[in-house]
C-alpha cells in the first residue's frame, strides 16, 4: 500500500456569496459522506484540511504578493491523504470526490517517504 496526496482545486471567485448555515450543511454533506466512504474502506490516512481563500506568495528579494488566486484561477481549496495499491486505484477513488460536481478537479500525487 502506498500513500497519495489528493489536492482539490477550484475557482474561488465563483463562491463569494455568503452561505446560510443550512446551505453550508448541504454543501458539507457530500464531503462528509465521501470522506466517510474512504474511511470505511480503511483508505483514509489523514483527513487533511480545508484552506481559506486568502494567502500570500513570497518570492525572492522580499516580494510578497496576495494570492495565489490572483495568478492561478484554480486555487487549492483543500487536501487529504489516502492509501491505495497504485496511483490508478487512487485516481479511481478520486472519481467520486464532490469537488468534481462544482467544476473543480483533483490532483493525485504519490507520497515519497523520507528515509
Amino acid at each position, binding site marked *: 500500500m502506498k500513500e497519495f496526496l489528493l489536492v482539490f482545486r477550484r475557482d474561488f471567485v465563483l463562491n463569494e456569496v455568503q452561505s446560510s448555515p443550512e446551505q453550508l450543511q448541504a454543501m458539507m454533506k457530500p464531503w*462528509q*459522506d465521501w470522506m*466517510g*466512504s474512504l*474511511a*470505511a*474502506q*480503511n483508505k*483514509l490516512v489523514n483527513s487533511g484540511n480545508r484552506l481559506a481563500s486568502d494567502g500570500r506568495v513570497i518570492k525572492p528579494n522580499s516580494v510578497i504578493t496576495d494570492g495565489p488566486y490572483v495568478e492561478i484561477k484554480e486555487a487549492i481549496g483543500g487536501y487529504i491523504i489516502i492509501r491505495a495499491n497504485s496511483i490508478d486505484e487512487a485516481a479511481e477513488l478520486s472519481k467520486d470526490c464532490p469537488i468534481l460536481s462544482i467544476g473543480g478537479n483533483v490532483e493525485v500525487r504519490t507520497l515519497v517517504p523520507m528515509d
Partner: protein
Amino acid sequence: MQENELIPHLFRTEYRKIISVLYKLFGIEHIEIAEDIVSDTFLLASETWGQKGLPKNPTAWLYTVSKNKALDFLRRNKVFLEKITPEIEKTETTSQEIEIDLSNKNISDSQLQIMFAICNPCISTEAQVGLSLNILCGFGIEEIADAFLSNKETIYKRLQRAKEKLKTEKIKIELPNQHEINSRLEAVLTTLYLLFSEGYYSTSQNTTLRKDLCLEALRLNLMLTEKKETDTPIVNALLALMCFHSSRFEARTNQSGETILYEDQNINLWNIELINKGEYYLNRASQGNQLSKYHLEAAIAYWHTQKSDTIEKWESILQLYNKLLQIEYSPITALNRTYALSKANGIKEAIFEAEKLNLADNQFYHSLLGNLYSNIDNIKALQHFQAALKLAKSKADQITISNAISRLIVEKENNKS
C-alpha cells in the same frame, strides 16, 4: 441470604475493598503479602463461621481480622517494617501504631490509584482487563476464564506474568500528577471500554456474568467521575456510552439467551433511568472542546435510544460514523456506517458502498448485505445470509441468521402461490 451464599457474596463485594487498601499499604513489590492476608481472612471466616455461627456484622469481622493480620505481619517482620515504614510514615502514622484505614474514602482512593497502576501500557491490554477484574472487581480466576472463553491456567499465568511485570517496572500505586493524568487516563479508559465490551458483546452464554462485567465497568467509570482530578469530559463520554448501551440490556436477549435485534426490541424493557443518566453524562462530556471516539460513540448510542426512524436520526448517526471512522477504523464501524447510510441515503447507495468494503471474510458483512438485498434481490440476499451462517461462531448469531433465512424462504413460497 443463606449462610453458604454469604461468603461468596462477601468475597465479591469486600475482597476488592480490603485488597486495594492492603495493596496500597504494602506497595506493588509485595502484593503477594496483601493477597495472602486477604485469602487467610476469608479462609478463617469460612472455618469459624461454620463452627460458631455468623458474627453480628460479617463485614466488620472481615475488616478487623484482615487489619489484625496485617498488623501482626508488620510486627513480626521487623526487617520488613523498617524497610517499608519510611514509606508508610510519610503518609500514615508512626512505626509503632500503623493505622489501616478501611474507610470508604480510603477504599475508593486506593482503588482509583490501583486502577492507574494496573492500566499501564507495560502490560498487554488483555492483562490489564484481567487484572482489573481480579483486583478491582473481585472476580475469581474461574470467572475471568469464563468471561474470556479461556481456561483457568492460561488466565492464571497471564495475571501472574502481568503482576511480575508491574513489580519489575516498579510501578507506583498512586494517582499520576495533573500533567500526566490525561495521557494516563487514555489507558484506563481503554481498559474500562474493553471490560464493558467484553460483557456487552461477549459470545459467552452466561448472561448474568456478562451483565456483571458491564456493571463493574460502569462502577469503575463512575468512580473516575467522582474524583475531581479524573472527572474529565472524555471520562463522562465513556460513562454516557455505557449508560445508553446498558439501558437495552433487558430488551436485547430473550429468556433463553437468544439475541433480540434492535428493531424487534420491546421499548418498554428499555431502562429509562439509565437513558436519562446517559444524557446527563453526555451533557457533562460536551464541556470543553475535546471530541473523542467515546463522544462520537456515545452520541450514536444516544440516537439509538430514540426508537422512531426520523431523517434527522439517521443523518446524524451517519455523520457521527463518518467522523468516528476518521478517528479510528474498524470493520464493525465500517459496517454500521453502511447500515446508517442505507437509512439516510437509500439502500442502493448503501449496497454500492458495502461492496467496496472488502470484508468478505466477516460474517457481519454478509449479514448486512443479506439485509440490504432482502426484497431487492432475494437470491443474492440468500447467498449472503448463507455465507454469514458459515462464518458465524456463536449460537446466538447462528439463530439470528437462520431466522433471516427462513423469513426469506417463506416469502419466496408466498410469492409463488
